């Protein structure tokens, strides 16, 4: 009787053990979304990946590393540009710089996580996908940084053009004193000054639109709002760029107009001229 009990207990234990292996195997298939030919489970719980799956994971890691590297490179170039910004308030510059540094750190952490994953193909897939879906670098941080840099450039060019406009104003006044008709050139200068004022407004508008934006973190409504704001700011910058080129062209035309009226001025003659800017 004792012998019989021992045999039946052994059978029950064996059945339980086989059942456990079956459950582990089924769970592995469901989690990874792979066939049992790709993954097999051992009684010790270790998961062995087929050569095909391992090759796929290696390829995924290579793609991810390349994409992360591309983003880090872009972020590094952007932070270099942001550090050279001079015509933007320090608060804006600091905030942009902090965001970029934070994204670089996040990308490095993600890279380490992806590179270290040699067993979980599903988690790897999610991490690779998150490079674009969760880390909204190209969706917000980089365009935001470039827009701030563009506003800086707009203000830089506007300031330089304002200096030239003042110099041209002096030259036109000298022409009037010499009895020349300066009306056409004065109209051009007035247009140039209007354009300089306009580009400052456009630059400020672009800054005001994008400064309060924050990452969407998967919120589609916020994502669309961010995209619209960035696109609007981009349009402002494009208009400003066109106006700056037009103002620069006007300056050139005024200078040529002065020459045509016999009002050229050499450097030596200019050196005795009164100070233009206070």
């Amino acid at each position, binding site marked *: 009787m004792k012998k019989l009990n021992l045999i039946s207990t052994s059978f029950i234990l064996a059945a339980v053990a086989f059942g456990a292996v079956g459950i582990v195997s089924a769970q592995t298939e469901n989690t990874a979304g792979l066939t049992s030919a790709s993954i097999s489970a051992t009684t010790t719980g270790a998961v062995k990946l087929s050569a095909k799956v391992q090759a796929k994971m290696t390829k995924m890691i290579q*793609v991810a590393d390349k994409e992360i590297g591309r983003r880090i490179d872009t972020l590094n170039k952007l932070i270099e540009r942001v550090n050279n910004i001079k015509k933007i*308030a320090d*608060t804006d510059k600091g905030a942009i710089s902090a965001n970029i540094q934070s994204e670089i750190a996040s990308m490095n952490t993600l890279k380490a996580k992806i590179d270290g994953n040699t067993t979980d193909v599903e988690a790897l897939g999610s991490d690779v996908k998150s490079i674009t879906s969760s880390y909204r670098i190209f969706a917000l941080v980089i365009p935001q940084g470039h827009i701030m840099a563009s506003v800086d450039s707009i203000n830089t*060019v506007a300031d330089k053009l304002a200096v030239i406009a003042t110099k041209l104003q002096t030259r036109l006044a000298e022409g009037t004193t010499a009895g020349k008709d300066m009306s056409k050139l004065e109209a051009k200068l007035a247009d140039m000054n209007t354009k300089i004022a306009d580009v400052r407004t456009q630059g400020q508008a672009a800054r005001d639109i994008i400064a309060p934006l924050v990452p969407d973190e998967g919120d589609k409504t916020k994502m669309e709002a961010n995209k619209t704001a960035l696109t609007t700011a981009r349009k402002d910058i494009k208009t400003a760029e066109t106006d700056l080129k037009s103002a620069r062209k006007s300056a050139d035309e005024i*200078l040529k107009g002065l020459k045509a009226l016999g009002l050229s001025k050499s450097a030596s003659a200019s050196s005795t001229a009164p100070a233009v800017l206070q």
Partner: protein
Amino acid sequence: MSSSKAVTVIVVILVIVGGIWYFTGSKTGQTGANAVLGTENQIATTTPVVEDPTIKDVSDDQINNDLSGIDDSLKTLGSDAAGIDQSLNDKAIPQVQ
């Protein structure tokens, strides 16, 4: 426990809670990831450097030099603007089959 001891214990607890709240608040107030940019009026305007002798030079040559400087700055603006377009047109990573 006497009432004076109870009051002391409550005061100590309030000081500890207040201290934790203060330090946590000051840390979250620091500039961190994805900080929202300042809302105050931001663009710093700069006045031309008075000491620069070229500012007083209104000759044709100097104005042409100034215009060359504008062209360089416009190139930088073009590069910044191209960066915006490039980032806005970024595509999702193709998945490995």
